[in-house]
């Protein structure tokens, strides 16, 4: 019994050890892998990201010059970010917010705004 006494007193006096999520949100660490974002202005449709993705989350359509990305399949392994020769993919440290239906992002390479059907 005396062994656990410091722990018991600390638990009694310190307050709850859990956070009141979603009112209190922990700020993610700067090094964490959150989600990836595509930049249409720089993408040249070289397909290196689609060939290297282990989860097959990126697919390229050369005729219509579009890139489709499925965020629900992405495992955030960062292989596409490190492999892109034109620096068109960035890794953001915050996680995505939850979604109720799995979205598909369609990006048009070279300069147009992305259309995201929700």
């Amino acid at each position: 019994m005396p062994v656990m006494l410091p722990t018991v007193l600390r638990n009694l006096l310190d307050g709850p050890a859990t956070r009141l999520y979603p009112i209190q949100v922990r700020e993610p660490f700067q090094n964490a892998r959150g989600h990836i974002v595509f930049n249409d202005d720089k993408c040249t449709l070289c397909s290196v990201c689609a060939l290297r993705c282990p989860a097959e989350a990126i697919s390229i359509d050369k005729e219509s010059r579009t890139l489709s990305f499925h965020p629900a399949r992405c495992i955030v392994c960062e292989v596409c970010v490190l492999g892109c020769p034109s620096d068109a993919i960035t890794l953001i440290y915050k996680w995505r917010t939850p979604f109720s239906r799995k979205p598909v992002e369609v990006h048009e390479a070279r300069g147009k705004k992305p259309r995201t059907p929700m």
Partner: protein
Amino acid sequence: MATRTVVPFGPQHPVLPEPIQLRLTYEDEKVVEVTPVIGYGHRGIEKACELNEYAKNIYLCERVCGICSYQHSATVVEAMERLWPLELTPRINYLRTIWSEMARTHSHLLWLGLLADAFGFESMFMQFWRIREKVLDLLEQTTGHRVIQSVNIVGGLRRDIDEQQKRMIVGVLAQVRKESQSLIKALIHDYTVKKRTVGVGIITKEQAVSLGCVGPTLRASGISEDVRLTKYHAYGELNFEPIVESAGDCYARAAVRARELIQAIDLQLEALSKLPEGEIAVKVKGNPPANEAVMRTEAPRGELFYYAKGNGTRKLERMKIRTPTYANLPAVLVLLPGCQLADVPVNVLSIDPCISCTER
């Protein structure tokens, strides 16, 4: 006249982390026969490894198990690196050792919490997992993810530890060590815990070798055997000796894991103080040659064995995985007959079952 009943233990049971069914035949509260039924988690990972290019296999094999994920990643990468064979720098070996021991720390804290939960000691379970949160935060700050770290590539690593992170890790580890010591003292010297684990589920020395047990299950029966003695990664330069107990019962297995937890923290602190300078990745030329290679490491549950065979193309010919719980499962067939009904959860949990590793 004794009555015989057959009771299915599992596949859903509060004490099991993963699904396995044990068909137990009772004769008035004493277990007489046991038949394990597995196959609830078979995903065909060995066949899927032949579909992918060799570099994508890392992301597939990491996900064989969630708790010992780092050791799977380090072993598959090293088995593929031995096909060429590639020459690694000392810094790569030291960093892999540090992350391996960090994974062992969080796995043993998880198991100690589950052991307390198996007796109904729920508040101790929560105290251990509160300490474990600090280790998971360390993993997130250094590698990017909490559970599946994805930091190994063929030829080295993708992330580095700089001076500021090193000081932070040393500070957090010292705190984790102090808090774990006080909780372990409360658990191991408790009268109720001793009453339920001492003398329960004894595996003798000869039985342990002939059943092929590995890891803490083997070392608790008096045999000093550990794969880290082959001096892979940086273990040859660290001060390491296997921890052995001689009783062979559930209490000895718990004591081995508790002492290994403290030893893992000490090994990390020693490796951080001796970390050499150098590159974190070497260049890889060409496809995996037509060769075979074997790599074994010490996962938190025992010896992990990977066999890789290349054939000169970008896809591997064969990948074979033998996980530690696969080797410890026949020991359950010997442990359970003869024990009481209430001892079954404690016995099954004491070998640290990771069924998703067993079935891949």
